[in-house]
């Protein structure tokens, strides 16, 4: 059980406050942002303080921290802020939802955020600062490197390697034994069947609009 400060005041910070507050042994006590981004002095009913002037009661000797900045700059922003908070002495904590199923024995790294309905099979290795959103599946023997972001209902088959900093869009799928390079972006619904190079971007073929109105469909 720790008191934690959350870095950020956006939608992800609001969600972190929600999940840590409802479903963890930790308690959020304040939000921190860089002084240049300090716009309000309260968020979710708690104080917001600048990283440059953190009051003693929220410092690293009293609090742990969680960085909740989303996938900006293909996860680089979050990686940078994790490094900054660690440099300031904070221990970064992870969150695993009580409705996730985590079967692996390998310990998860710091600043991970594993949400409801996620299933992580045996022998999976999860690095630091990995974000996995609701109903995603990570099959056996897969490795997910640091700072990766898996959106909702992403499916990663067995023995896959997801490179550091990858972003996998909502509903995307990676087949077994595939190796994704570093900092790849896999768009919503995309299906990856072969290895990818670093920094590669993939999108799914868009749905086709049919030349009919929905009320003309016979079987629905």
């Amino acid at each position, binding site marked *: 059980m720790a008191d934690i400060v959350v870095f950020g005041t956006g939608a992800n910070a609001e969600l972190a406050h929600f999940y840590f507050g409802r479903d963890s042994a930790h308690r959020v006590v304040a939000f921190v942002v860089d002084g240049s981004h300090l716009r309000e002095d309260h968020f979710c009913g708690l104080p917001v303080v600048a990283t440059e002037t953190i009051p003693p009661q929220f410092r690293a000797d009293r609090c742990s921290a969680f960085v909740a900045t989303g996938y900006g700059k293909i996860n680089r922003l979050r990686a940078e802020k994790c490094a900054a908070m660690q440099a300031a002495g904070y221990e970064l904590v992870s969150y695993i939802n009580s409705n996730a199923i985590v079967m692996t024995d390998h310990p998860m790294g710091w600043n991970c955020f594993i949400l*409801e309905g996620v299933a992580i099979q045996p022998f999976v290795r999860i690095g630091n600062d990995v974000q996995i959103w609701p*109903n995603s599946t990570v099959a056996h023997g897969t490795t997910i490197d640091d700072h990766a972001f898996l959106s909702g209902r992403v499916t990663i088959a067995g023995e896959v390697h997801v490179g550091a900093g990858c972003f996998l869009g909502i509903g995307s799928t990676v087949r077994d034994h595939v190796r994704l390079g570093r900092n790849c972006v896999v768009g919503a*619904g995309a299906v990856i069947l072969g290895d990818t190079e670093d920094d590669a971007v993939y999108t799914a*073929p*868009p*749905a086709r609009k*049919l030349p009919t109105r*929905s*009320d003309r469909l016979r079987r629905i």
Partner: protein
Amino acid sequence: MAELAHFYFGRDSGHRVVAFTVDAEFLKEDRFCGLPVVAAEAIPPQFGADRCGAFVAIGYGRVNRLRAEKCAAMRAAGYELVSYVSSRAVVLSEHTPGWNCLILERVMVQPRVRIGNAVTLTGGSSITHGTTIEDNVYVGRLAVVASDATIGANSFLGVGCVVGDRVRVGRRCVIGAGAVITDDTDDDSVYAAPLAERSRVPSSRLRRF
């Protein structure tokens, strides 16, 4: 759908199904799932709206209009419509779903999601934070809707489809199985996923299987 509703309400809710009702022209049998079936035009007093709530268990027929019409009819007859949320769904939103919703197992509803009336979320579907699901929407199994999206009233989302963040799906749309929608859609539009290609190689010739 009625059989499913009977199953879920019976096994996993604070409610108890006591009878089925259909329009008289569809009255073919007098019992279903071991319970009486009565015509909507001649409901016996023990099943009247002063004694019972109701649930309209109709799928996506006529792009969800049929369910919407029967909900309106039951409400006009004085029934309060109840919703079902599986004990194995995770509904984290502070906004309570409306009436006559059916929310099945492994559905994930994140904070700040708004769910209207007569919405069906079938098993394993995920609705991400800040999204609005309007009235009479049907969401197929394992469909996923990203954050801050809107699904217009009466729309149908097929099994496994994907709706991107901040997208507005219009009213009465049909999004086919596995379709990926990343831009807004017009009302009444129909989308289909690209079809899988059949390989000329038979499965017995695949090298890596």
